[in-house]
């Protein structure tokens, strides 16, 4: 698939008076792609999104939509639509008026507006809500209307700033799936901001992980999860065991156990292992010596806490396999997969 680039951000820099902000952000989003900006609170996700929407003026860099720079355009002239972090329907208008407002401004005919609004409400599963007021809707319904309002503008790029973060977990899941369906059926280009890694992993075609105003990694969810490029990404996405070690001549010493590694790394390192990649054998086998501290069955899998000289390690096992283990048992650990990062990069 070689779709066109729909949104292109080039060397975007925006610094607030406080010195915080984003620096040198470059990214491309293809037509019909859903890209997530993921990062901890305050890393600059909203700053990037608002710059694209026209609500912030960047210090330098360029923003292009469908090949044309939009920097000189005010928000009302940009081919973008935004769903905001907080509910921001207009409380004095009915749902219908909220949805029709933008279309009226575009001088659309009345019947056309009515049809479009009806279709949009159908799409967000709120048919018949036209005459309700925003205050008569639940939080989830309000955000659905906000999404519908943005969809009605048929934007070249849809921007969503943590649209579901104020909702409870179950509703969040539901809306996420709905959004994905809408995206697949409308082929809209979307830029989605979240600090929830689960949301990003489940929703995105591509994830851009940000940290302190910079991009750390931009890859598919699979790649982000399997091969995090930096210690920060490894730490931020999913759960990780972090072990200190010393690398030398193609091997890493973790306490009294030696692990193979690529020869081009040396010095103090951090070895990162996902809980599901930890393997165990009887203590007589080679590996990292460990003692079982606790076995916790969590539904279909079990989480085992192990004590080693290098610190606590967590391991996920299918439930049946975990039944063999008991507290106080000595075992030997190996890793099916691991990543190594220099320690200074924390």
């Amino acid at each position, binding site marked *: 698939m070689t779709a066109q680039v729909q949104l292109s951000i080039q060397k975007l820099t925006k610094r607030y008076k406080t010195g915080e902000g984003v620096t040198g952000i470059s990214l491309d989003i293809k037509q019909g792609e859903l890209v997530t900006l993921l990062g901890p609170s305050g890393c600059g996700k909203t700053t990037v999104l608002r710059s694209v929407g026209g*609500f912030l003026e960047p210090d330098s860099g360029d923003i292009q939509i469908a090949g044309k720079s939009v920097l000189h355009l*005010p*928000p*009302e002239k940009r081919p973008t639509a*935004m769903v*905001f*972090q*907080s509910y*921001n329907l*207009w409380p004095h208008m009915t749902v219908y008026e909220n949805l029709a407002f933008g279309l009226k401004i575009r001088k659309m005919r009345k019947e056309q507006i009515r049809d479009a609004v009806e279709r949009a409400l159908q799409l967000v599963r709120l048919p018949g809500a036209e005459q309700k007021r925003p205050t008569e809707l639940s939080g989830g319904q309000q955000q659905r209307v906000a999404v519908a309002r943005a969809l009605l503008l048929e934007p070249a790029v849809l921007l969503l700033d943590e649209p579901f973060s104020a909702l409870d977990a179950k509703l969040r899941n539901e809306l996420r799936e709905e959004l994905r369906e809408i995206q697949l059926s409308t082929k809209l280009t979307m830029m989605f901001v979240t600090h929830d890694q689960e949301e990003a992993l489940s929703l995105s075609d591509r994830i851009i992980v940000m940290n302190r105003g910079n991009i750390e990694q931009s890859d598919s969810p699979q790649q982000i999860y399997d091969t995090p490029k930096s210690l920060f990404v490894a730490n931020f996405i999913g759960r990780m065991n972090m072990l200190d070690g010393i690398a030398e001549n193609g091997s890493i010493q973790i306490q009294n156990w030696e692990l193979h590694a690529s020869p081009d790394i040396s010095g103090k390192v951090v070895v990162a292992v996902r809980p599901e990649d930890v393997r165990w054998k009887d203590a007589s086998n080679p590996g990292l010596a460990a003692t079982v501290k606790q076995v916790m069955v969590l539904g279909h899998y079990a989480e085992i806490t192990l004590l080693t000289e290098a610190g606590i390690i967590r391991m996920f096992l299918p439930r049946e396999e975990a039944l063999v283990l008991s507290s106080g048992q000595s075992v030997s650990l190996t890793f099916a997969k691991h990543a190594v990062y220099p320690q200074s990069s924390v």
Partner: protein
Amino acid sequence: MNGQSVTPSLPTGKSLKPSMFSRGARRSALGLVMVLPSFFLLLFMIVVPIFTSIQESLKGNDGNFTWDNYKYLFTDPAMSSSIKYTIHLTVVSSIMVLVIAYLLAVFLRFSTGRLAKWIERLYYIPMFIPSVIATYGMINMYGNHGWLARIMLLFTNEPFMRIIYDYKGLLLANLWFNIPFATMLLSSALSSIPNSAIEGAKDVGAGKIQIFIRIILPLSFKSMLVAATFVVMGVIGSFTAPFLIGPNAPQVLGVAMQQQFSVYFETGIASACAVFMFAICSLVGYFYIRSMMKEER
């Protein structure tokens, strides 16, 4: 409250006799005691005087029932021109206050400049200046030999226009006394409009004027109504400034009423005047409450 009602206790279902010291009884007694002062205040300061005035206004010099006082109010040329004058002044002052206060409030809400910051700090100062002092200040400023007249003398020999003891002076006084409060009300209404509501409108393509007419104005309309009510009532009932710097004829109703009462000793006419003012205020209050109820629904 009355010691006879018997309530079943929750866990056992057995009936309990509420004693004088039961919690509920003590609470509601306390509540009543706390409400009483304001109730008596309302009764003796507002309800009783209103009825006395109505009674007084319907009594002739011989003590019998008569409509004469009201007839005088609307037929006497001096009195009816005072009424017209008062209503005119009230309408013009209120509109000017609201327009200026609204513009000021919009400026304070949306400007981030230094001027806005300074106005924000200073605009409510007039509220802290006693009205007598402010009125004398006005005489000093705009009077025949006031600062403005003296400064004008440097440029022209024309006699200075009459502000004090004139309509213009009263208008200026009304602006001075009412703009700060109205601005405060409207500012708080405007600052409760979230930025995201405005940004949302920009996002769907609304320009500045559309945002103002379709979003900002409707969302602050209710507060505008509240402000209008307070301003109209305040202006109609104003006394200090009109008494000190108002013209002799026609007069503002408050001053006319005072004259009837303490200069001509016409208690009946003064009372009719008071009842008339109260009626106007009630009308304004009625529209205010009605529109509030409409909003609730």
